[in-house]
């Protein structure tokens, strides 16, 4: 480590952060999601496993309180519901739902160019221990109504995500036991069509 008085650290920008995150080719993690809705008496907590393969898509497999498996690729979103029903959304059939889902992909893989067109960078801070925090504000409707403020933080990869809606309802997602850059297994490859 060099003396902060003598050497200037590289300034953290969206671009440099994006470069850092682009080193994450694949990611698997356990997630815990906590949604606080005014209409709900208690927080909605869900747990499961997420897998991201850069350029290919995201698997979002919720294990509790009920099982749902979501596959997001460039072309479509497939949601396997409990009871065996499968719903498919394409960019054409429901552009809004699709745009939101693809946002997840770009956020998790740190694709700055994808969210720079829709968000303004509010704040980008470096914390001790290689931690960083990024706050984004959606620029236009309908995104701004649903996610007025997005806070992302992490180290080599995104470790937590906080979404705040215009109605001040907060969704917080934490990722634990991250595994980076391990070749995706057979199931992941099949579901993402690799």
């Amino acid at each position, binding site marked *: 480590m060099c003396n902060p008085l003598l050497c200037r650290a590289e300034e953290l920008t969206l671009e440099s952060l994006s470069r850092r995150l682009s080193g994450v080719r694949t990611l698997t993690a356990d997630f815990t*999601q906590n*949604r606080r*809705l*005014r*209409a*709900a*008496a*208690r927080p*909605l907590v*869900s747990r499961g496993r997420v897998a991201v393969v850069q350029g290919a898509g995201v698997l*979002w497999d*919720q294990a509790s*309180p*009920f099982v*749902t498996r*979501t596959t997001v690729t460039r072309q479509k979103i497939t*949601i396997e*519901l*409990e*009871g065996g*029903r499968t*719903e498919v959304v394409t960019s*054409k*059939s*429901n*552009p*809004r*739902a699709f*745009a*939101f*889902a693809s*946002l*997840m992909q770009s956020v998790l893989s740190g694709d700055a160019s994808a969210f720079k*067109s829709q968000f303004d960078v509010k704040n980008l801070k470096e914390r001790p221990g290689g931690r960083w925090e990024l706050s984004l504000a959606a620029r*236009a*409707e*309908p995104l701004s109504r*649903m*996610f007025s403020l997005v806070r992302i933080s992490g180290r080599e990869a995104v470790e937590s*995500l906080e*979404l705040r*809606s215009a*109605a001040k*309802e907060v*969704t917080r*997602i934490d990722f634990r036991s991250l595994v980076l850059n391990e070749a995706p297994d057979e199931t992941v490859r099949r579901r993402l069509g690799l």
Partner: protein
Amino acid sequence: MKRSDVVSVFKAAAAKLRTNSGAAWGWAGVVFVLFAFLLIALPRVPVSSDVMELIPEPAAGQVSRAEIRSLASKMGRQVIFAVSGPEAAAEDFSNRLSKLPGFSSFSGRLDPVRTRDSARFLFEHRAAFLSQQTRSRLEEGGGAQAAWVLSQLYAPLAGVSSSELTRDPLLLMRTSNLIDRGEGGVRNSGGWLTGNDSEGRSWRILHAEVDPAFTGASELSSLVGSIKEAERQTRALFPGARFAASGAVFYSDYAGSSARHDVSKLGLISLALLLVLLIAAFRSVLPLALCLASIAVGAAAGAAATILVFGKIHLLTLVMSLSLIGISADYTTHYFTARMKAGAGVSIYETARGLRPLLLQALATTCAAYAAFLFSPFPGLRQLGIFSVAGLCASFVTVMVWYPGLTRRFRSRSLPFTGALQRYIGLWRGGRLFPWAVLALLALFSVSGIILAGTDDDIGALQSSPPGLRAQEQVIASITGRDTSQRWFIVQGSTPDEALDRKDLLQAGLVQLRAKGLIEGATVVPLHSLRAQREDAALIERAMPEVKRRLAQAGISVRTGERLHPLELRTWLRDYLSRSWSGLIEGGVGRTAILVPVQAGRNAKADEALAALAGSVPGCAWVDRRSDFSQLFGEVRKSVTVTLAAAGTAIILAYGFACGPLRALGLLIPCALSIASGIAALGWAGLPVNIFSLFALILILGIGIDYSLFFGSRQRDSEATLFAVVTAMLTTVASLGILVFSRTAAVANFGLALTTGVFAAFLASPVTLALEAVLQRRRRQGRRP
């Protein structure tokens, strides 16, 4: 008056008519009656310009042609503008456009209050717009709907909020037809309808509908002019802004301005060329004046005959027939050439009489060729047959009866360029290398060109549209997801409910076609029939308790018992945001028609599936204007080809039978080579053979016959014939061949085939001279021991 008196009056009249001046006055009377008839009849007779009327049977079985036409014209009046750049640019452009008088409706910036009211209205009636997907979930039962609602609730980016959940516990609005429109992402953002193009650039969208009273050529041209001016002014204020527009009006205006260009520029050039040519040839303006007079009489007679026989006339027939009877200009040329050559003592009447048998023969043969169209299955071609036969005959009578009296002052004089003419004739008479070399070269040109030639009946290939318009249209298509290919279903019902039910039936079929990848999408009216709405309301009521129970498990309590109001088509179309759908719906007493535009690639498999789908839905028709036109053009092209071949063969056989194989061969070779050269020119130029080229070929056949007949006739000296043929060829090229410079691809195609064919006919027509020479040499050799 006694009977004998009447007879004697008639006899006297007949005798008078047999005199030269009597015949002229008699014909003047006929012409007067003709023009009087046209003056009275033309304003009353329907002059149709709808190309579809040229086909014999209805195109789409279940829906009337008038219905299709009316809906097509409604679609054709829609104009979409898009502006990219600062909001103020869209605002400024929108302000300018909204002031234009040619629009019956215009929508730019959305009124915020009305938008909010409308959104509330649609939300209250959301049960009237259930998507196929929601419906199938509800049919499965409350459990399936509950599972989906919960998955949305827990999904990290689905963005379900408390207010959405409490207002719409089944989340019906999320997958409503109002959201899933089957087209690209046009959305309501910041008070505008906006969309992104394929490069991700955001555009604001403005809609306009052209006033039906404004669809005349001059109104349209002034409207398009004002639109361009508005764009220019906005661009001057906001240099960074981009503009795009799409709508049939821009194409109509372009086609109109191209036609005006052809008529004004090419027409003037053509007239000037004719004047120069005829004055150079005959050193008098009289031939041009008389030529125009005989064509005018011919056109009047043709139009009158068509109206008398068919009770109507088609614009396309009129235009095409006019060029066909243009061949009668050649009679004028032959008359004046004969007059020029006539000796000092020969009277004008003697000249006319001397020319009569030959011209009559030419007329009869040409008429026989054109009359073949009377047997065509296409009404338009039958009209063409009547028009051209009547027109040619009237032109001929005009030349024979009027010219002598009108050309008294035209003195006989020597032929210009006699030496050159004699040398050229000598080359053919020699019957040695030259003629066969010319024919061989023509044959080589024809065969190689025909190998290169192909047919194309696509109407898109016939219209030349400026690339700028195309590019703008593509931008709009990428923003809105709607293309302008004019391919749609029409669903009709005797009540709005019946039409909407049939629309749902069609939509179910379209969903399957989309899943199979046969179509890319369709723009379907989102509202359901009242009957379907009642059924959906029952499904919703059945699913509600289970959804409520599952939400309660998650700690969320929702209100239930909201009344779902049924929504009628008429009421819906009055809604602020929903009005834009009225372009796809036409309601009348006792019937409602709904248009469903489809975006699909053009391939046989998809076309077949779409046609089959239309057949499976009652009151439904698949309308593909472009392919209907193309099919029509293809069929007419084939019909004309067959007619042309049959007429040509019959004429040559008849000549062979009546005048011997030599004359038949003298006719066959020039006709075959000239038609082949016409096709070959298109092949060499990389242009397709289509219906318009075929019309040029008909004309070439007539001209080929005429030229050959004149050379084959031994009554006249060949130098004079050559002079007349050269002059006739040049006048044809000057009057019709000049169309090769037309901006309309179809017309240029006609001009090129015609010019080449007529020139080839001129080159090959003296072949009889060479054949005769060969025959004579043979005879001489035979006589020698």
